[in-house]
Every structure is written in C-alpha cells, then in structure tokens.
C-alpha cells in the first residue's frame, strides 16, 4: 500500500488534483465569500478557454513538439469571432476552418522538413498576431449572441465552468486515451520508429495532432469571446505559458508521448485560480506576471523531484 502511494506513477497522477485542492483550500481560507456558486463561477469562468488551449498544447506535446503560438492563435480566433463570426457567420466559419487547415499544414511541414517546432511556431505567433491586428485593429467587436448566451449559462447547483471543464476533460480523455487510433497517436510520440515499422503513417499522426490543436484552439477562442467584454489581438497572450504549464502540471512529459488529458484540465483550472489567489494574498500587480512564471518553475521543480525518485528505483 505504501509502495503504491509513493510510487512515481501515482505521485505523477495525483499532483494536479492535489495542487488544485490545496489552492482551493487556501483561497477559501483567505476569502470565504468565494465558497459560493457566484464566487466559484466568477473565479473559474476563464478556466474554460484556458483548459481548451491546454488541450491544444497537449496534442502538440504528445508528438514531441511545442506550440509557442497558441496564445497568438487564440487571440486571432477571438478577433475573428468578434467581427466576422458576429457579422457574417458564414465567412467567420470559413476563416476559422482555414485556421485549422493552416495548423494541419504546419504539422505536415514540420514533419516533412524535420523543422524545429519552436522556431516555426514562434514565427507563426507573429503571423497570427498580424492577422488578428488586421482583422481587428483596435479593441472592440462584439461576441456572437449564441456564444455569449452559452458562456453565461447558470445551471442549478453546479457552476457552468465546472461542467464545461468536466466535459472537455471527458472528451479529450476519451479521444486520446480510449480510442484505438488515439493510442497510435500517442505511440507516435513514444516510439515513432516502432509505429512506422508497424505500417502506420507518421505524417498522418503529426498532421492529425496539429489539426486537433488547431480545433481546440478555435474552441478556446470562441469560449473566450463569450467571456470578455471586448476583443483585442493580444487578449490571450499568457495562454502559451499557461497551456505549457497546464500540460506539465497535469503529469505530461515534453518528450515521450506520455500525457494526461484529465490532469491537464485540472492543471489548467489550478493555473486559472492562481490569478485570484495572487490577488487575495495581495501580491502587488507588478509581481503578478513574475508570480505566474514562478508557478511554472515550481511546477517543473516538483516534477523534477518526482522524476528523480522515479529514476532511483
């Protein structure tokens, strides 16, 4: 029993849930008013777009790459949603669909030319930023009604963000961890040579994962526009850092294809709560950004410790 509890696999799986519980407890202690439907709803609203962006990043990390453009991409989607999707829905859908195709094309490009995804996605972050600014040069725009309605739902007893997060986690978990092709996708990150030898196409797996990332990125942007009052190109600037932190906090590895969708969603929620938490402990606004970088560092430090335990066995 002791062996299971202290086994690295267990620690790795429990870390996101544990850190979420600890953070939630601290928040309730600091500000008991948050322990209410309204309080939770307010704090966790933004968890939805962040969780979706985290799942997008998870797809890319599963195939041993990294997406440094997810923040800019979500910002682009927000701007498109606030303009085209609101005014001429058909055009909006087309543009967003094209965005997903671009992501798929990037996956193909990275695979075929053996390019480092860091540099490519860093370049893409400027492409998305530029496109977002072209679409919406100054903050403004308006959210499509149906999205705003969805995001403001108030189901009984359980705040909407919690339900939404549960659905996201369930869908991602099912698609990646339960389906047969999902195991092939993850396998292509764990031992690409073996997957290829067995006759599967590595090009297809890479393209599939990047396209999924693009799809979840779109969902992230759509949910975000329903929550913010006005859109602007850099509204999701921090999402790159959050999404990476969320995947790692959730028990994922940068290489090797070992990821946990449920853990990633829990990690995303934890990071969402870090913002109100920092406010409640009166971190001066100057240090807010730094604190969030520090959180990523702490998360990685914890993981490094767990990995060292793992290696010593």
């Amino acid at each position, binding site marked *: 029993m002791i062996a299971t509890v202290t086994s690295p696999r267990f620690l790795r799986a429990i870390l996101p849930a544990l850190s979420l519980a600890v953070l939630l407890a601290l928040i309730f202690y600091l500000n008991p008013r948050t322990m209410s439907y309204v309080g939770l709803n307010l704090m966790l609203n933004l968890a939805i777009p962040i969780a979706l962006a985290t799942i997008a990043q998870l797809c890319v990390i599963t195939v041993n790459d990294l997406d440094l453009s997810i923040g800019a991409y979500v910002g682009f989607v927000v701007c498109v949603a606030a303009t085209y999707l609101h005014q001429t829905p058909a055009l909006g859908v087309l543009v967003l669909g094209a965005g997903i195709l671009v992501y798929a094309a990037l996956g193909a490009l990275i695979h075929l*030319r053996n390019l*480092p995804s860091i540099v490519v996605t860093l370049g893409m972050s400027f492409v998305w930023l530029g496109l977002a600014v072209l679409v919406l*040069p100054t903050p403004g725009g308006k959210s499509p009604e149906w999205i705003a309605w969805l995001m403001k739902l108030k189901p009984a007893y359980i705040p909407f963000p919690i339900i939404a997060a549960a659905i996201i986690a369930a869908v991602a978990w099912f698609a990646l961890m339960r389906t047969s092709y999902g195991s092939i996708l993850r396998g292509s990150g764990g031992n690409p040579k073996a997957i290829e030898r067995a006759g599967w196409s590595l090009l297809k797996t890479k393209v599939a994962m990047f396209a999924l990332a693009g799809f979840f990125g779109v969902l992230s942007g759509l949910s975000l526009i329903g929550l913010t009052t006005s859109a602007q190109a850099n509204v999701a600037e921090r999402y790159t850092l959050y999404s990476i932190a969320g995947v790692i906090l959730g028990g994922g590895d940068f290489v090797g294809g070992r990821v946990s969708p449920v853990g990633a969603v829990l990690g995303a929620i934890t990071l969402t709560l870090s913002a109100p938490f920092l406010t409640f402990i009166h971190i001066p606004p100057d240090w807010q950004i*730094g604190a969030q970088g520090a959180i990523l560092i702490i998360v990685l430090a914890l993981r490094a410790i767990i990995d060292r335990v793992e290696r010593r066995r």
Partner: protein
Amino acid sequence: MSWLQRIFEKPWLWSFIAAFLVWLATIVFTRGQGGGELLTAALTFATFFVIVGIGQMFVITLGPGNVDLSIPATMTLAGSVAMKVMDTQDSMILIGLVVTIACGLAVGIFNYALILVLRIPPIIATLSSSFVILSTAIAYGRGLRIKPPPLLAEFTTVQVAGIPILAIVVTALAGAMGVVLHRTIYGRSVLAIGQSLRAARFAGIPVERIRFLTYVLSALLASLCGFLFSGFSGGSSLSMGEQYLLASIAVVVIGGTSVAGGSGNLPGLWGAALFLFLVQSMLNTYQLSAGLRYLATGLIIITVITAAGGQKTQR
C-alpha cells in the same frame, strides 16, 4: 553557374543582398528621396538587433533545443535598473555599466540553474524566467521613465558621415565575437557541442561549463543592449524588448546560422538585421499597417527556416 554557386555557399551574402533589394524597393516608392537617411536609420536600429543576435547565435549554435527566450525581459531589466542607478548623472555611467553587467550575470546564472538543476528544457526555462525577470524590472523601475545621462545618450546617437558610432563599435564587437567563435577554445567548444554533443564529450570538452558560459554570454549581451537602447531612446520602458524576441531569433536564422547547431554566422547577423529593419520600414513606407508588418516578419522567418530545413539526421 560557378559565381551563383559561390553565392549560395555563403548564406550570409543572401541577407545583405536581400537587404539591398528591400532598400531599393523602398527608394523606388519615394522616388529616390531619403535613401541616405534610410540607410542611416537602418544602421542605427539594426545595431541593437545585432547585439542581442550575437548572444542568441551562440546559444542556438549549441545545438537543437537551445534558445534564449529571456532576452527581451533581460533587456528591460538592465535598462530599468541602470537608468535608475545612473539617475541622469554622467559620473554614474561607469557604475551603470557595472550594474548592467551584474544584471546579465544574475540572469544568466539563474537561467542555467533552471536548466541544470531542474532539468528544464532551455526553451521552457528561459520562457518562465523571462516572466520573473520582467516582473523584477516592473517592480524595480515602477514604470518611471528616467532619462539617461547626456553622455550616454550622445554616445548612442552620434554619427560620423551618416554612420552611427555605435554601429561601428558593434561591428567591431561582432568581428571580435567572430574571432572568439572560430579561434578560441570556448568558441570551438560551442561549435563542437552543436555538431555532436556525444563526440564533444568524448573529445574531452566540458559540455556543461561551456553551456553555462553561453547562457551567461547571451544574458550579458541582452543587458548591454538594454543599457544602450535606453540611452538611445531617452529612457527605458517596459515594452522596450517586445520585438526583440522574434528579432533575435530572426537575425540568427536569416543570417545563415543553422538551427541544427554547430555553425555560427556573424557577418550574416548584420545583413539580416538590416534586412529586418528595412522590411519593416518598407512596409511603413508603403503604408501598410502594423498587422501586415507582424505578418510579414513571421512569414519571412518561416520561409527561411523551411528552405534551410532541419537536422540532417533523425535524432
């Protein structure tokens, strides 16, 4: 075909040629007016790209996975701290420089501690440390725009026959760093590690020590750039480093350094820096918006790296 072949053999030549073509295209639009001023402006601003480009180049040359994403934050930190310490006094310039170097050292050590102790991939380490560094800059500087000492401002802006003195100094710096790369034990070690980490280890090269020195070097140059840029632009601001993240990587890649590591290209940094500035100003001249500028920069870097390709062998 041989002269064409020789051009393709020297990748850094492309960047100069490309820069020249862009300059030409801009002049065409203005019907020949202001060519000289444009060149001067290009040299002025490109200088700062080159300073950080040198540091980024050494990091990237260490091999795949090595990128320093904390350069903009380090620039901002050094700029804010130095300006505050100097407090517009010429007599404090030397102290300001010392403080700048101290910032660079601190950041470099911090970054490498994350990489070595916590085993974080350099990209993530420098990404997360950049947030911490930026916060430190904000907290310290309180966003106040302190003017630089007049002597510093003068040094960074003075020109001789339309060429900024700073550009000449930085060209000399780039030249010196080129010698460092190819003719010192440190530089050769960096090139060796970038070509084959295992072979470098077996050849007796102290890999960790070299990597540490390189990340410190990059932070030092970023600090220096922040110091000088603050002097140039009348004070430090929190958004000072914004475009330097992509710019530092762009000038390295476009300048002909391979992202696979093991081959650094210093002259190319200048060509690429000029090219980058001239593209932006050309887009300005053609009255294209900020959005298109971002778009163009991103597309250029993707095109260049796609053309260059990635690692030859599958790792």
